[in-house]
């Protein structure tokens, strides 16, 4: 048996023995375990599952073991993902530190920064949020104006960040700040880590169309940041920012819904609404065609993710196609959501309470939240700009 086949076998057995039954079911948002100084446990099983995974370093399976990771190679890491999916395991821990900051620190952080921050992320001790966009710097991110002024041993930070997801529940924020206002706009930016537990930082949630307030506005009023928490070098934050955006887009393109509740069954909804014949064929030809088209395109997106991964492992392909995945994944996800909402009819547009199906209510809210997916992390239009420039090398 090859090394990887052995790993698959062992992983399958370990998961079967260690993942509690209740952690193998679809999860609603309130059932998720998030990192943080003041963690709350949705259930005893959730705590047990988190602890077992943490102890193996499998909250961050592909990080080096010395920083609290599982030390898995890319193939092993993919096997773990597949086996968890196979068994229906929930993610043991959620955090932007895991998905975005950690990978960027591994690439651009100093040894001291990695040693200080990565193990805490791996153990779920600190919950991170992202301070990129500003009220006047959205798609044109590099025009950001939040200032960090050198005070000798620390920086003094002033300004405002917007769309800071879950900032009201977070402990630290990774921020893009302007450290040289005289330089051209991409060249005066630094990447700074700021502890949010201080008087100079205040957070106000923004109510969204989904009725939730996951996004916030975060204000810095003479906030303090230690100098050793500037990552990637003074005025060189744009490089770190771009590498982190790649991780963010990769995360967003993964068309799985782990952590965002169960998905109602699209074909079942079509059957209930419009009926099907003895062979199971949907009677409404228009919806049948739309469903098939959506399923094909989703299948194509999933296959492309798989192909690009295999090409990366094999060292073939130019890697540029990865730039398309955020746009493709999020747009198809939204198309599927819209189709399902249409199939549910008026029953898909309930807001709360009786007599609506709670699962459908959750889906409806989720659909409204997902409307942000083609905007956050760089709009689909920004993605097309990036593809045109970097993959197609069109004249600028």
């Amino acid at each position, binding site marked *: 048996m090859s090394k990887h086949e052995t790993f698959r076998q062992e992983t399958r057995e370990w998961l079967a023995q260690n993942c509690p039954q209740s952690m193998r079911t679809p999860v609603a948002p309130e059932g998720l375990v998030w990192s943080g100084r003041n963690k709350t446990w949705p259930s005893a099983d959730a705590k047990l599952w988190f602890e077992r995974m943490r102890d193996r370093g499998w909250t961050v399976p592909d990080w080096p073991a010395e920083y609290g990771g599982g030390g898995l190679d890319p193939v092993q890491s993919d096997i773990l993902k597949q086996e968890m999916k196979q068994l229906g395991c929930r993610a043991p821990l959620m955090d932007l530190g895991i998905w975005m900051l950690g990978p960027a620190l591994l690439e651009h952080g100093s040894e001291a920064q990695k040693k200080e921050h990565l193990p805490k992320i791996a153990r779920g001790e600190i919950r991170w949020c992202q301070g990129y966009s500003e009220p006047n710097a959205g798609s044109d991110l590099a025009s950001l104006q939040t200032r960090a002024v050198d005070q000798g041993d620390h920086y003094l930070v002033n300004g405002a960040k917007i769309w800071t997801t879950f900032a009201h529940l977070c402990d630290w924020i990774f921020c893009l700040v302007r450290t040289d206002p005289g330089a051209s706009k991409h060249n005066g930016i630094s990447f700074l880590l700021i502890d949010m537990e201080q008087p100079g930082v205040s957070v106000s949630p923004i109510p969204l169309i989904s009725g939730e307030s996951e996004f916030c506005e975060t204000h810095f009023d003479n906030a303090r940041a230690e100098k050793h928490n500037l990552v990637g070098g003074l005025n060189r934050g744009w490089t770190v920012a771009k590498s982190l955006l790649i991780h963010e887009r990769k995360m967003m393109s993964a068309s799985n819904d782990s952590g965002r509740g169960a998905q109602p069954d699209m074909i079942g909804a079509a059957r209930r609404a419009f009926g099907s014949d003895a062979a199971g064929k949907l009677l409404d030809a228009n919806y049948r065609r739309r469903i098939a088209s959506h399923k094909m*395109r989703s299948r194509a997106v999933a296959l492309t993710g798989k*192909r690009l991964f295999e090409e990366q492992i094999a060292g073939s392909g130019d890697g540029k196609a990865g730039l*398309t995945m955020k746009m493709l994944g999020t747009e198809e996800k939204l198309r599927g959501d819209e189709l399902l909402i249409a199939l549910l009819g008026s029953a898909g547009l309930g807001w709360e309470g009786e007599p609506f199906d709670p699962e459908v209510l959750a889906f409806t809210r989720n659909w409204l939240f997902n409307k942000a997916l083609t905007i956050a992390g760089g709009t689909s239009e920004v993605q097309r700009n990036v593809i045109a420039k970097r993959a197609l090398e069109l004249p600028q």
Partner: protein
Amino acid sequence: MALALNEEQQLLKDTAREFLAEHAPVGALRKLRDEGDETGYSSALWQQMSELGWAGIVLPEAYGGLDFGYQGLGAVIEESGRTLTASPLFASVVLGASAIELCGSEAQKTALLPKIAGGEMTLALALEEGPHHNPLNIATTAEASGDGFVINGDKTFVLDGHSADTLIVVARSAGNNPGSDGLSLVLVDADTAGVTRTRMMMADSRNAAQINFSNVKVAADQILGDAGDAWPALEKVLDRGRICMAAEMLGGALECFARTLDYLKEREQFGAKIGSFQALQHRAAQLYADLELSKSVVIDALAAIDEGRDDLAVAASHAKAQLNDIYIHATNEAVQLHGGIGVTDELDLGLFMKRARVAVQILGDSSYHTNRFATLNGY
């Protein structure tokens, strides 16, 4: 690894691209068209392609083939889609040889497959009876008569039908029309008495024929496998054909995109390269992304053949439906983004545009395959 080419396959692909660029560029098809060539492809070129092993690339070694797999053949066909190369590769090797391999007896395979692998014999699958792909609509009959069978009926849009040495006729020996029961595959030498072939000049300058069978007498051993039982094998043959046609279409679409991208980088209007205009950049970016999806769908479907997967039919219908749509879209975008010069015969794009439309109709348009995809998935 299933979705990335291995080194050998990549080498084959590179070799195919170099060979076709040198020996069979788009200009070669233009020449066949302008000279009104009777065969519709170059026999000398087919001989060279056979010497490279392409005619036997997927056939088992026991029958003189290379047993290199459909991912390899798909790579060659994709490249031939870039050059619009006319050859018997699709009709003879993908459809014809597969029918013999999947449906024929040991004796038939031993007698015929080595000749196909060596490029000595060409085949055509006489399937369609109307302008829309419909493999269950078979009115052509194969009636038992004495020791053999008699074939009667009309076939149309038979790929390479006017030039192939031997025809494989899909005929009904039992069962109701339309339907899958009672279908037979019958080997008919093209010179047999009662076979009348009329070449059909299609918009893509490739090769198709109308064929009439009037009381064509065949021996019992000219039936591939057992009479009346051909459908399960035929369906697999058609899926292989759909997947390989999708590979050709991928090559054509990629070529149109590459030429368009070059044009966007060199053409100037309003004092700037037109590729610097965001309206055009976004169209190019979207097309690039859609082509990346198409690559994945095609290579996965080729792998489904090689791995003998049970979702072959799903993968085939997905691949054909998607490539139908993208090839039409890519050729339309190419012409539109080239502007006026795009609709001149001097530019090759028109040849791709016409090929796209013909290729869409071969073995099923998107409506056919979207419907089949849904049915196969139980809805």
